[in-house]
């Protein structure tokens, strides 16, 4: 399987759904993500501590939620597109052992003010389809043709 979505299937039209991506979280990934981001909070890698805090297993980091949604956006948009702005919110925790669906849709495409741009809505859903996190990304074609800062 290649990383990028088949360009032949790309439809940059508002309302088009991005092909969903399935992810299964595990303890090793949560530990590695905590390590590389220097996040020492025990709820992310200490099963006993996480359970004592009321979670059913170690909890995914907020930034991992964000990274998973951005991965879908990048896979779908292709190498020529870059993320300029992004916002997301965690609605409920995701745990080690959970299988998640990452999805999204095109919400807007290039307009006269910002040619070569588009906006996506993104989400992570749990096994029952419940929203775990939601986000929105603004992308531009070319290597940072328009700076977001």
């Amino acid at each position, binding site marked *: 399987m290649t990383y990028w979505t088949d360009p032949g299937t790309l439809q940059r039209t508002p309302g088009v759904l991005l092909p969903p991506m399935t992810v299964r979280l595990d303890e090793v*990934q949560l530990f*590695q993500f905590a390590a*590389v981001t*220097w996040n020492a909070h025990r709820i992310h890698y200490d099963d006993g501590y996480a359970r004592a805090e009321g979670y059913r297993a170690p909890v995914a980091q907020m930034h991992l939620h964000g990274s998973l949604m951005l991965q879908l956006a990048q896979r779908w948009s292709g*190498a020529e597109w870059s993320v*300029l702005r*992004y916002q997301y919110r965690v609605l409920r925790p995701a745990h080690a052992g959970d299988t998640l669906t990452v999805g999204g849709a095109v919400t807007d495409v290039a307009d006269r003010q910002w040619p070569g741009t588009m906006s996506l809505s993104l989400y992570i859903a749990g096994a029952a389809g419940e929203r775990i996190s939601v986000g929105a990304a603004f992308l531009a074609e070319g290597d940072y043709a328009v700076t977001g800062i």
Partner: protein
Amino acid sequence: VSESASRRLERVGAAVELVAGRTEHTILGPVSSRDVMRFAVASSDPNPLYPARTPPLLLPALVGWGHQERPSGGRQRADGTPADSSLLGSLPQEGLRSVGGSQAVRLGPPVPDQAVVTREESLTGFSLKHGRSGPLGVVAVRRVYLDEHGVALAICDDEMLLR
């Protein structure tokens, strides 16, 4: 329990007010291709453009980099987070649970290999909310990541939730 949590959260709010307007500068150190690839592996993101292009959340996800100018001296709270003299670390969070709530990011150019990144951090607000599960404190944090030439690589506005 609820009253106690409210009092603790009010203390956090007062502490945030005390440091309003202060900006903390932390040298995170050089960002290497290895850092990029480790982040990619931990994110399960095999993007073939890495490390030439950096993952958008590489810097915004960083809590630290392990070799800040001012080490915490090993002091930490029961939950593993550092209790130091930094703006966030100095908040009176004992007895409270903290989790990330949301993040808004504006991205600049890709992070050059070996760029020495500095983070400017400031606490920009606090709000106390009362929900069905009890009181909730929301600490707003702004982080700006700069390279050694002062170019903004990312500007992030985070909300940290305390309950």
